[in-house]
């Protein structure tokens, strides 16, 4: 076997959980560290890229990296327990080991966005992919213009992750806007789809860059609204979700037209995917 095929891209690395934090009911953050010192030293990632996390005997799932790329020896993942693998992962704690492959994919254009206003639009639960871009910008607050985070949920009780939102609210020059499709007792945000929040923004924000993650209908609706308000299509980015098994462009599960989401995404410039996002069954 020649050296070119090593390391074997299917083979996970052993990673140790060094810390665990509860974020909300069923949502937790792992801080991971690769066991092998050479691999640990060589590991680099970009915000918006993901790892494949493997739970012993059960399976592998794609999970976004939410920590800072300047500290690549510690890798944070915020995970929501929804099924077989993620519920099993939820039972692990410090000292336990799991498998990790990555990083994979194309992340957020955080460098290209330097000096500009950022509009982050997130929908639904556990929108971890955008978190990494928000954290990245907040940790380099002076490098970016104004930051607005528009977050939509179906019902008020779906709003979790409260501390994160509170800390983002407290950051300088950062606006956090919330909306729920249906109002409920005690709800202080807006009522309606996430696009209602766009009316709350200073119109100058539409000359900045937008990064979004959430259900595809929400991202498409918001992107089209942003275009109407004058945002340039090349300034709109979305993170797509597809079934992933290999993360290498080999298994076909994440195929989206000409793209493999694992390889050409998960972050795409909206203009690249706009046409096919309209078609059901792609």
């Amino acid at each position, binding site marked *: 076997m020649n050296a070119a095929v090593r390391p074997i891209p*299917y083979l996970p690395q052993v990673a140790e959980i060094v810390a665990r934090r509860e974020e909300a009911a069923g949502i937790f953050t792992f801080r991971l560290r690769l066991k092998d010192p050479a691999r640990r030293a060589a590991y680099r990632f970009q915000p918006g890229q993901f790892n494949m996390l493997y739970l012993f*005997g059960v*399976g592998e799932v794609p999970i976004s990296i939410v920590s800072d790329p300047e500290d690549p020896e510690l890798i944070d993942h915020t995970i929501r327990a929804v099924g077989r693998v993620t519920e099993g992962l939820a039972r692990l704690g410090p000292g336990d*080991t799991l*498998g990790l492959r990555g990083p994979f994919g194309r992340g957020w254009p955080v460098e290209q966005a330097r000096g500009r206003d950022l509009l982050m639009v997130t929908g639904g639960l556990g929108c971890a992919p955008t978190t990494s871009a928000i954290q990245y910008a907040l940790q380099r607050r002076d490098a970016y213009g104004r930051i607005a985070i528009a977050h939509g949920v179906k019902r008020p009780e779906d709003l979790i992750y409260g501390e994160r939102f509170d800390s983002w609210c407290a950051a300088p020059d950062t606006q956090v806007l919330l909306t729920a499709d249906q109002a409920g007792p005690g709800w202080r945000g807006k009522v309606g789809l996430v696009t209602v929040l766009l009316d709350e923004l200073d119109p100058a924000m539409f000359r900045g860059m937008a990064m979004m993650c959430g259900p595809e209908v929400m991202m498409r609706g918001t992107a089209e609204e942003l275009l109407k308000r004058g945002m340039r299509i090349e300034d709109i980015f979305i993170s797509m979700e597809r079934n992933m*098994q290999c993360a290498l462009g*080999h*298994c076909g599960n994440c195929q989206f037209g000409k793209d493999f989401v694992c390889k050409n995404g998960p972050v795409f410039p909206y203009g690249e995917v706009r046409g096919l996002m309209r078609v059901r069954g*792609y």
Partner: protein
Amino acid sequence: MAQAALLDRTAFDFLIQTLITQGYRVLGPQARTGAIVWDEIGSADELPRGLRSEQQPGHYRLVETGSARLFDYVHGPESLKRLLFAPEESLWTVDRDGEIRFNETLPAARPTAVIGARACDIAGMLVQDRTFLAGPWSPFTDPYYAARREHLFIVAVNCTMTAPTCFCASMDTGPRTRTGFDLALTELDDGFLVETGSPAGEAIAARLPLRPASPAETQAADAAIDAAARAQVRSLDQSGIVELLFGNLEHPRWDDVASRCLSCANCVMVCPTCFCHREHDAAALDGQSSRRVRQWDACFTLEHGSVHGGPLRPQIRQRYRQWLTHKVASWIEQFGVSGCVGCGRCITWCPTGIDLTEEVAAIRAQPGLQA
């Protein structure tokens, strides 16, 4: 090309014995349960003789012709895909003893010579190379595929017969093999015209009792291959195919084909270029170890690509459309080449005889229709 050489029909076994003595496991065509497949052979006597395959949409049958010829059938359901990209295999194993440990399971690939690969098979393999070997089209090499690929010696056979389902001529992939082989044979009445395509092929050819081919023999071989090309009744017009199919994603023809398609995935399984697969864990009963297994999968299954617990393409119409638009259109954008090599297997092996060339032509005949 060096001057063509001829191997007499009676000397064909020399080829097989030479391959064996040079350390190759030899896979030859075998007639099994009514179809041609590849299996290990020890001599030329084990090859089927005087068989021809009758192929039509949804129909395949081997018929005896009584002739002494070895390669008059065209191809069976199998292509080189099975030999390089295994239908099922372990990617790695893991065990735990306190902490977990991953183990490589790379197989020691055996040098294997396969006899009777057709131009479409080789074209299909060259397409899969773009998926599984790192290069301009893919960032990662699949080491399992690469190891077998490196150890495969290909004895190609140029087609002098064609099936009514074949359309390699219109895809520019056959019936003559141009590249990707070690040795290529063209069967004549008295023997086999032999061409070499690699240093490994030359090394084997040097040990064979070859004689120079006469101009008449070379011409006869060319004429037979040309006749096979001309006999093809199907074709696929590829002009503007990406725009054609992606501009007609709501064409009523997708509903029409969905009413005939059983979503059985036979077309994917026999296709030499389809690469989709799934992975799962096979945990040992003692709970201390597990195997990661990959298995061929198809975009026709509901589970393929499903997200959030629900199928991504619940309707057959969406799944057939996914298959065809990928195969003959977006594949070109992904890998710089069509995902279809014109072998016609999907037409022959579709239980309801669905014919992709007809589906593309129907949309081309009436573009812009909306369902």
